[in-house]
Structures are given as C-alpha cells and as structure tokens.
C-alpha cells in the first residue's frame, strides 16, 4: 500500500548502505523485556535491537506500548509511580537500567508529542542543556546554540530574535526549537514521541526533512502512528500490537513491501489500529 518509489533518492541510497550494516552492533538493545504500570503489562517480552545508523520507526495501534518503549530508553518512565521493568536493556552494551540517569539522558535526548519549550527566551531554551551539564563556557555557548538551531533548521527564522520568548514561535517552530534544545547536549540518540502529531502537514514535512538530515549523524528512534510518515523517514520499522507485543522488525522497505506476520499485514492495510 505504501509506494517505495515516493522515497527521495538520497534516502533510498542511504538505505541500501544501511541494510548492509544491519549486522553492526546495535546502539540500544532490549532482551525479553516486560514492562508494567502497576499490575498492567504494557510491554510483552520485547527483544529488539535498534541499529546505530539511521532512523528506526516504532509503529502500532494506540495502547500498544510504543511510547512506553521510548520512555524506557531514557528512563522517563521512572516519573510514573508503580512502573517496573523486567529484562535487560543496554545502551552501547552497558546496562541502561542501572546507568547514571543524568549521563544517560545527556546521551539519549527526547522530543515530545507536543512542543514543550520552557517559558524562557529562544536562546535560553537551547542553552538549557549545555548549562545543566556545564558543557560550554559563556563564550562558546552562543556557538553551540547557533549550531543546534542550524541543525534543527530553525536558525534563519530566529537569529534576529533569540531573546524573544519561545512562545512567540509557531507550533512547528516550537517543535524545531525543542529538537534544537535536545541536540545542544550532543546526544548519540534522539527519541521522538510522535513529534508531528500536534502540527499541520507543512510543519510536519519540515520536521521530517530535519529528521532525515539528523540521521546522518545520530540515531533517531521515532514513534509514529502515521504509516506514510514511517515509510518516508525511517530505515527500520518495528510494529507493535495491542498488548505490547512486537510483531515484526526489519528494514522499512522490506516490512512495508512484504510483511511476514499476518497481523502486521492487517495493520498495514488498515484493518485495525
């Protein structure tokens, strides 16, 4: 149903390269992971290796645990009382669940479903992370902010009003500001939780372009319920099903063209979800 031919040429060629490297060491790996909110099980025996290169999309109907999976990678789930993980999750081979959470979140950044800039200036939003980690001296901070805004494709629009409130930006700009804010601490991985769901189509397109560009330098894991979006931006796709079970994982092209699992075929054809 999704035509691979609509993919931009550059993406298609990256993809061939990426497929050759699928056997590379994964950057994040889960082994037989179960996740519980109290008595309720949100993830069911999930074993998944996120490749270090490219964009991995996590798809599935609502309530399938895809956001939970993402929030496990940077341990944001710890904010919710009663949440519990069973199994092993590693980041670059290290036990992620026992790592220092501050350091972990510096390496694994996150962009949320709704843009959530701080009620501060545009500059201070981007500078927040570097300041937290004492990463940049005052003189270098301006440069870090500029670079991050450039990478998020926002610099040209805001360079003359860095002191203005972040809330003076449009929704799409706010989301790109949040991307810049996450990039400013130079993460290895960027987690994105349905980053376009609160945006109009045009703003979504720009975010998708940005994601493709970012994929050249870091790992992007994106949760989306939009099949077309997953097909456009991702190199790998994992499909989750209700109950928190992962049905299939593989290169996006293969998964969309020839899904192995009947339930994934149903999902892609819109029979449920």
């Amino acid at each position, binding site marked *: 149903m999704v035509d691979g031919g609509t993919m931009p040429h550059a993406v298609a060629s990256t993809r061939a390269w990426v497929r050759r490297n699928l056997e590379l060491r994964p950057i994040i790996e889960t082994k037989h992971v179960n996740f519980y909110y109290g008595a309720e099980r949100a993830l069911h025996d999930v074993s998944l290796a996120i490749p270090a290169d490219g964009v991995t999309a996590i798809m599935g109907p609502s309530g399938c645990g895809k956001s939970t999976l993402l929030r496990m990678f*940077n341990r*944001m789930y710890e*904010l919710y*009382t009663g949440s519990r993980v069973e199994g092993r999750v590693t980041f670059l081979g290290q036990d992620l669940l026992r790592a220092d*959470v*501050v*350091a*972990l*979140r*510096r390496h694994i*950044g*996150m962009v*949320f479903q*709704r843009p*959530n*800039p*701080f*009620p501060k200036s545009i500059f201070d939003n981007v500078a*927040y*992370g570097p300041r*937290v*980690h004492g990463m940049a001296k005052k003189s270098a901070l301006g440069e870090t902010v500029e670079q991050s805004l450039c990478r998020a494709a926002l610099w040209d629009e805001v360079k003359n009003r860095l002191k203005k*409130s972040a*809330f003076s930006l449009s929704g799409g700009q706010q989301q790109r500001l*949040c991307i810049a*804010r*996450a990039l400013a*601490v130079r993460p290895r991985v960027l987690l994105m939780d349905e980053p376009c769901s609160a945006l109009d189509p045009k703003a979504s397109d720009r975010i998708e372009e940005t994601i493709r560009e970012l994929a050249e330098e870091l790992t992007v894991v994106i949760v989306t319920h939009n099949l077309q979006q997953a097909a456009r931006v991702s190199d790998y796709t994992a499909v989750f099903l209700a109950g928190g079970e992962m049905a299939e994982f593989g290169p996006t092209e293969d998964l969309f063209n020839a899904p192995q699992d009947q339930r994934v075929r149903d999902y892609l054809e819109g029979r449920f979800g």
Partner: protein
Amino acid sequence: MTDQSRDNRRRRRAIQTIAFSLLGMASVASFLALGVILYFMISQGSGAISWQFLTEFPRKAMTEGGILPAVVGSFYLTLGAIAVSLPLAVASAVWLSEYARRGWHVRLIRIGISSLAGVPSIVFGLVGLAFFVKVLGIGVSVLAGALTLSMLILPVLIRAAEEALGSVPTSFREGALALGSTRWHAVRTVVLPAAVPGIMTGAVLGISRAVGETAPIMFTAAAFYMSHLPQSPFDKVMALPYHVFVMATESPSYWKTKDLQFGTALVLLGLVLTMNLGAVVWRTRARRRKQW
C-alpha cells in the same frame, strides 16, 4: 396534552424561578455586606483622614493627632511575618508537590497544615506569648509579633504556593528531566520561575491577612502607646488594628476618639482591600500573559 401535565410544567417552572431568585438574592446579600461595611466606614471615618493624620504621632492621650507609629508598626510586623513565612512556605510547598511520595507521613503533614489554618487567632497570640516571648525570651517585640503572625499566614502561603506549582505543566518538568537535569535543578530553573506569579499573589493575600489581625500581636508585640518609632526588632510597636482596639476599649476617654477610631479602621480597611484588589488584578494579568 393533558391539563394535568401542563399544570405540572407550569408549577415546575415557577419553582425554578423562585429557586433561582433566592440563590441570586443570597449572592447579592453577600455583596451588600461589603457595601454596608464600606459605606459605614467611609461615612464615619473619612472625616478624620488627612495628611497629618497619616504622618503625625497621637497627641493628648491619643484623643488627637495621627497614627504614624501604628502605620509604621503594622508595616514592620507584616514585613517580618512575610520574610519568615514566605521562604518556609515555598520550601514546604516544593517538597509537598515536587518530591513527597504519597504516604502516611505526607498525609499527616497536609492534615497538620490545614489544621493550622483552622486554629483561632487568639490561640496564636497565646502560643506566641508563651513560646516566643517567654520560652525563647525574645520579649514583647516586633520580632515576636512577626514570628507569631508568620505561623498564622503559613498555611495560606503554603496552599497558594502548592497551587501555583501544581499549575505548572508537567511537560516543563519532563522537558528539563529529559535533558538530564536533576529534579532539583528542574524545580529551580524551570518550575519555580513559572510559579512565581501565583506564589506572589498568595504572598499578598498573606500580607493582607497579617496586617489586619489583632489577637496574635496583642500579647506579643503591640504597645498601647509609643512616643518613638521602633528602633530595633526587640522594640514594642503600635499597630493599626490594636490601636483601634485600644482607643475603643481602654482609653480613659474613648468617647472622644470615635472619629479617630473610624479613621484608623478606614485606613486599615483601605490597606487590606487595596492589597486584595492588587492581588486579584495581578493574578488576572499573569493569567492572561501566561502562554502555556
């Protein structure tokens, strides 16, 4: 349609009209209460008010002259009370709303705070006398009065601060934590700044509560008459509400001071209403400016 059902409908509509009129009258009545107070105070007290009244000391056994020492004394007392209680209130509100996990000890603390709000003010006065004045040996002074008043307004401030913190969106906290800041850093750099307008509104309401109280300062701070302004925190002070009380009950010639009593009370009322109004305006403006 039968006659009976039509009657029924008419009856129900009449009942509704009566019910709503009664409810409306009730709210008008509570507004009238304020109107009556304002009318009475202004008509009786405005005659006494003048620049001299506000800037001079009382004269002739307080049957003439102004209320300067009472105004200054009330100012010091309230300033001291807010200086003590605001940091305490913000600290405990942060703990309660940002850190404390649910549990019996948190519930106990919350119950304690709301019980504190229900303690009669005369009890604060007596406790202040027993604890601050006697046990701590501070003596009857601005300091003892300010400490006593700060206990009184603490629950008001805590509740306001907790509410202000609670209205800061969770997404701000998540954003900060996801960047690797600690909980404390997120509170300090993102959550608290966003809650400042709400906290300050609570502070103003606390001040206006403190400035009008008589009982807590009666045994802990207030002086019948002072020929000079307080020189240190260990001096006694005159205060507006106590000044009214004294002139009305203990002055040997209380009938001569009727105008002064109403004038003083009017000044006090004006102060309190202005602060309350200011807090309301501030809150409305902060709410409108708020962009999340």
